[in-house]
């Protein structure tokens, strides 16, 4: 049994059983660091990735359900040499304390900005409502998303 996935534009196959949560295939077979285990029951958002542009919780999403679809993780947005506007904005706003929740935050924000170019503060907070942050960095995260929206406009 294998699972075939398209992640950040590249094709991969994994020996995982089809019902394996996508999170473990991404992290352990494909070497993706960004998506994190937080709760395993889609309550915290640390594992958020995009599936055809829509945010999904990879911790309880079966890998087989992502076949034939396009998966984007934080690594697919940019790297330290070529940062995506969101990544740059999170650095510019220093919108991180421990950072464990941040990949999920950025992916949820990416999905928002892809459909709403100039979101209001309320729209940003709604888009991130299911992503938990424990350090209390929320206001910086909102400012980072606003800054990225401006730069992308």
């Amino acid at each position: 049994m294998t699972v075939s996935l398209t992640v950040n534009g590249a094709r991969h196959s994994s020996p995982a059983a089809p019902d394996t949560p996508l999170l473990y295939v991404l992290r352990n077979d494909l070497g993706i660091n960004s998506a994190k285990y937080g709760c395993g029951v889609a309550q915290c958002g640390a594992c958020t990735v995009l599936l055809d542009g829509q945010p999904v919780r990879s911790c309880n999403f079966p890998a087989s359900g992502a076949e034939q679809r396009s998966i984007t993780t934080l690594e697919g947005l940019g790297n330290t040499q070529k940062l995506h506007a969101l990544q740059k904005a999170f650095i510019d706003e220093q919108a991180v304390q421990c950072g464990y929740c941040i990949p999920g935050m950025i992916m949820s924000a990416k999905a928002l900005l892809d459909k709403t170019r100039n979101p209001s503060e309320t729209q940003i907070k709604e888009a991130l409502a299911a992503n938990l942050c424990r350090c209390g960095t929320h206001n910086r995260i909102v400012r980072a998303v606003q800054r990225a929206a401006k730069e992308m406009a």
Partner: protein
Amino acid sequence: MSTSTSIKTQNGLSRRTFLQSSSLTVAFSLVPVLPGMAQAPARPVLPGALNNNRMLDGWLRINPNGTVTMCTGKVEIGQGILTALSQIVADELDVGVQRLVVISGHTGVTPNEGMTAGSLSIQDSGTALRFACAEARSLLLEAAALQLQTQAYSLTVRDGNIFTADGIQRTSYWSLTNTPSLQREASAKVAPKPSSQHKLIGSSLPRRDIPGKVTGAEAYVQDMRLPDMLYGRVVRPPAPRAKLISVDLAAVRAMSGVQTVVRDGHFLGVAAVREEQAIAAARALAANARWQEPGDLPPSGPALFAHMKQQDTADSVVSNKIDAAAAARGVKQVQAEYTKPYQSHGSIGPSCAVAQWSDGKLVVWSHTQGVYPLRGDLAKGFRMPLENVTVIHKEGSGCYGHNGADDVAMDAALVARAAGGKPVKLQWSREDEFGWEPLGSPMSIKLNASLDAQGKVVDWSHELWSYAHSTRPYDPDGVNLLGAWHIENPLPAGPSRNIPQPSGGSDRNALPLYVFPQQKVTNHLLKYMPIRTSALRTLGAYANVFAIESFMDELAATAGIDPLTFRLNHMVDPRAREVMERTAAIAKWKPGVAKPPAQLTGVLKGRGMGFAKYKNLAIYTAVVADVEVDTRSGVVRVTHAWSANDAGLVINPDGLVNQIEGGIIQSASWTLMESMRHSTQRNLVRNWADYPIMRFSDVPAVHVELINRPDERPLGAGEGSQGPAVAAIANAFANATGRRLRNLPFSVEHVKQVLS
């Protein structure tokens, strides 16, 4: 800007002469100072953590390749400490931060600085590095002067390059022909630079770890991958002190990918080739394990606090000021009692460790707050020599105190011991973390005060009941790791202890900073701990400041005096007065005495203030909060918070602001939402649905100001705002409604009850 240095020793000899003529004791640089040795008269007290880690090369190495290695025993837990320390080193040594190689928290390599806790890293490690760098710089310049046949004071340094008075670069730290050895004991006799010469200290240098964290770099122990690494999971009992009666190991061993199933007493763990296989195996193991549960947990809800007062306690009078004449002037007596429940650290990433055994030696990668204390308990737990255990820090999710970080390290090592030398990465499940991390202790605080005719407090009493707030690893009389309690030949936990004043544990910030002529503070530490508790950010300070600062507002109302004025009437410390006055100014505080609303209907708005000097010896923080109380639903929202802070010399202003902002939001979450729940059988919190925390929609706007005092020493700041924030919210609620919330959290049920 570059600087020149002139060095004189006390007896007038030049440093060079002094160093050449003295016989230097060369010791292995990481030998810690034993308690007895520290008191030896021949060894002067050195600043900060230098006192217990006295060799310069334990902190700093000048590398031939143009880099400088900075070693610290403090670790990154999301607070930005490694960036702040790198600013200190770069400034004191006159090198660019890009030249710094940072090594942090590695037993046998970095200094032993105990725990990264208590907002002490700048004070401990930062101070040590300042003095170590100042001394290393002077040694390097002395060597350069000798090489260049000139005087050290005429030399200047820019980015490690050394210039003579004519402005020509002659050499550098890494190209000296006579590089001085830093393998020598620090003297701390070279003063660090005055603030006027700081370039990076005091600037908001961006955090060095953020670019990696926003691009998917391997940033956390959870991201580690070693060759042949297995994935581990643990299966914990259903309740503390539950005993394993039976379990079918064979059925689980036969499962796909399972490499090992460990039973050691009441400890159960698995390792598998794939993570999802380990999870499936752990579930199967949990499903077929039979346990005997003692059902011995204390009552929950309000009954808990009555129960706590009936338990065996160790009692201490922490402060006892007597002034009978003043107390006799009292004309009004006020009393109130405040409580705080069990609360969780609630780290977003459950605890994780990687462990590997080879030839009877153990290496563990861990997000512990203290690599040396963890090493000590692992050695005790596995009954092996200390030198056979290495602990290497690797970041985890924010911990906010003693969460499962240390415990999971022993779990990983227990499973890895049965994995034939393969490394095992073991991460707790969300349920493991909520179920087994030590919790923040519940507290009950009874306050009494007496006011004189002028509205001044003449007598004050603070009596508190609490379980222990610090049961971290390396207790001298026990092993504070879960695994060690569950194995077949268990080792007992250390006894309940209190961190003594002046920092205090449960009595942290129980001594009012206000000046009261007569006062008594009594701490009742419960000796037996049915539900494990340990350090949650601020320890007892959050509840003590909640109680004291709520009570100050109650007294101000009784006296008919504006709350800010009432505080200032009892405060002598000018820095405390300034943060209160500054916070009031930025919040546009309108002095006055609130009148309760005519009717408790609709949405009521209110404003309150809270203040503390953390531990009575660190950062000064005041907070003003605005709240809205929906009288129909019982929902309290914090809409705005303002905070002025004085942390002395500020190393990285934005990093400090980030900590204060985060602390206010975290405190608002604790205050409005958070309470662990249990029955007499079991903990009832398994996931975030059972333990909601603050979300984006509820987060207040926060405005933070810093009062920088470059000529004062830096004060610990990472835990400054939690206490003042809870008090500001409580006082704002009372201001809005005329009713007082004295029991945390301010849940909908509690609010409705108080408003009815």
